[in-house]
């Protein structure tokens, strides 16, 4: 770990996972995260999730995505069960380089897209104080 600037976690957008504070079982959806000129885009595979099942919130610099799995009771006898029966949950740690106010989310065909615009350059920036 340390300060390797090529490590994904050194970017202004850090993808986290099921938080230790979440007690009920959750599943971590696979994500892609890429940077564009104007911001960052997070894609998450969340099959079975529609707009109404989705909660996206930003609190103290942490973006939380939570999506309810279809919880309807099975109508027959399960022969094969490979689906994880748990809500999707993923956190993303944001820095001040992200304009938290303008984050938008959309879900289509079971793929969630979260668009995180870069903050204006004029925005005050925290200065990192180097040790020594």
């Amino acid at each position, binding site marked *: 770990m340390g*300060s390797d600037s090529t490590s994904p976690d*050194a970017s202004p957008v850090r993808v986290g996972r099921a938080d*230790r504070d979440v007690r009920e079982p959750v599943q971590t959806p*696979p*994500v892609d995260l890429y940077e564009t000129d104007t911001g960052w885009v997070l894609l998450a595979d969340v099959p*079975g*999730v529609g707009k109404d099942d989705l909660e996206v919130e930003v609190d103290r610099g942490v973006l939380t995505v939570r999506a309810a799995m279809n919880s309807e009771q*099975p109508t027959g006898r399960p022969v094969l069960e490979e689906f994880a029966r748990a809500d999707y949950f993923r956190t993303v740690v944001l820095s001040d*380089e992200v304009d938290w106010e303008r984050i938008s989310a959309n879900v289509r065909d079971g*793929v969630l897209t979260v668009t995180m615009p870069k903050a204006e350059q004029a925005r005050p920036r925290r200065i990192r104080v180097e040790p020594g």
Partner: protein
Amino acid sequence: MVRHPFKPQSLSLRDLQEEINGLFDRVWHGGIRTAPFDGQEWAPPVDVLDEAERFIVRAEVPGLVAADFDVSVSGNVLTIKGNKPSDRREEQQEQYLRTERPFGAFNRSITLPVAVDADGVQATCTKGVLEVSLPKQEGARPKSVRVEVQGGQSV
């Protein structure tokens, strides 16, 4: 890519936990699920339900729509073929910070416990879940027979 990280100033046990979880996730999403399927890049997870008159087969196929599948039935074997093309952009290659989502062609065959009526099979795909309904063949449906229980004297 030079970037001035806005990292937390100290590492905590929680950071370590996240790193470890991340490792497990990468291994998990990278292949364990898809490994048994003879060299395919991935294969969608499948649920099968046995209802009295039919089977319901569901497959998790995020990003795909109905036209992306080739669904066929032969006897009691359902085959789902499809291709999930990568939506990653070549020109963005170095800008990817995470690449966990699986892509590629897949081909899954599911053997059902009894024969199904191939003409009555229907498939729909919504919200990234493919659902196939397969009516059982007439002779394969459960017959309900009431059995009279002869009681002796209770002791």
